[in-house]
């Protein structure tokens, strides 16, 4: 014997959305009232989807752009602060090394740091934030910046450096290489084939 009631709103909406119970499915096939209500619910959904879109009354882009540029500048400043911290770690490493006698990697380290600093100066002078890039070039820049961030994170990890002091010079070399590649990309917009 079938139940003597109509489908509830929730049951009919679930059926409309393809999740109805077996009971409501069977009931609607035999009940003209519920079938009409289901049809109405489908109609309302279609009409809702057909409502026109709104256009913002004012152009908000100038405000968004200005705020985004400010945030980006703040991030750059904190990025530079991170580099200062990394340099401090390296200086500390120097002190430790000098107290424990001459180390062959001293020269290589100071050379790599100098190369990195020089390349960073060239990179900043290009004002990379102000440059429009093609999609392909932008992908290269993002890849290089991601790798640079990884190197900086490693340079900011004193524990890892204590465990493997010889790696510090290698990281600074990598950093100089990545900055050099960024300079190349911004200067030439050439296709980057991968480091």
């Amino acid at each position, binding site marked *: 014997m079938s139940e003597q009631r109509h489908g*509830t*709103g*929730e049951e009919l*909406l*679930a059926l409309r959305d393809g999740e109805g119970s077996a009971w409501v499915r069977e009931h609607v096939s035999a009940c003209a009232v519920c079938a009409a209500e289901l049809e*109405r*619910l489908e*109609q*309302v*959904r279609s*009409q*809702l*989807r*057909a*409502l026109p*879109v*709104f*256009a*913002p*009354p*004012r152009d*908000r*882009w100038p*405000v*968004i*752009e200005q*705020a*985004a*540029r400010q*945030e*980006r500048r703040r991030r750059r400043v904190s990025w530079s602060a991170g580099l200062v911290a990394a340099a401090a770690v390296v200086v500390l490493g120097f002190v430790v090394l000098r107290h424990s006698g001459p180390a062959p990697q001293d020269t290589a380290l100071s050379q790599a740091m100098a190369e990195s600093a020089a390349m960073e100066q060239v990179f900043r002078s290009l004002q*990379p*934030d102000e*440059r*429009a*890039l*093609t*999609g*392909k*070039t*932008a*992908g290269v*820049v*993002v890849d290089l*910046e991601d790798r640079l961030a990884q190197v900086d994170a490693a340079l900011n990890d004193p524990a890892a450096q204590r465990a493997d002091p010889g790696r510090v010079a290698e990281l600074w070399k990598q950093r100089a290489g990545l900055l050099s590649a960024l300079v190349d990309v911004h200067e030439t917009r050439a296709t980057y084939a991968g480091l």
Partner: protein
Amino acid sequence: MTDTLPLAEAKSLVARARAGDFAALERLYRTYERPVYTLARRLTKSAEDAEDVLQETFLEVCRSLRQWRAEGSLWGWIRTIAASKALMRYRREKLREWEPLEEELGGAGVGEDVPLRMDLEAALARLPERSRAVVWLHDVEGYTHEEIAELMGMTTSFSKSQLARAHERLRRWLGAGVEA
């Protein structure tokens, strides 16, 4: 709406924007400003609130571009940010606008002036804010009840009952047919 930006173009624009290209960011903004603003209008009380949501959404997009998983729809990602920003306003304002079920379903309240027949736009605007949000997110944007529950900090069954109550109101206000 479906994503109007092909995935390859979306990936390219996002990569350029991540690299600091503001022309690419503006292109993203121009592509999605209307759908984001429309969603915000449906989920908030006023045009001013919707404008704020539009701005907050794109600032968040600028900050979080690295988090977009390039295999998914860019519009889907931006839309969820916009919905979160809009719905966060409920929590900030601590709105408590869920009317008691009985008096709502029993007819107009005392002193409430309801026309015999409303068009859909007017009826939608008349719905309580959160009910309207559930209807819009579910019926128009295609969110599941589980997703709506997560966005609104509610339970799935609550989302389902809100949808049913909202449709019951719309039925009363719209009459048998629907006028767009």
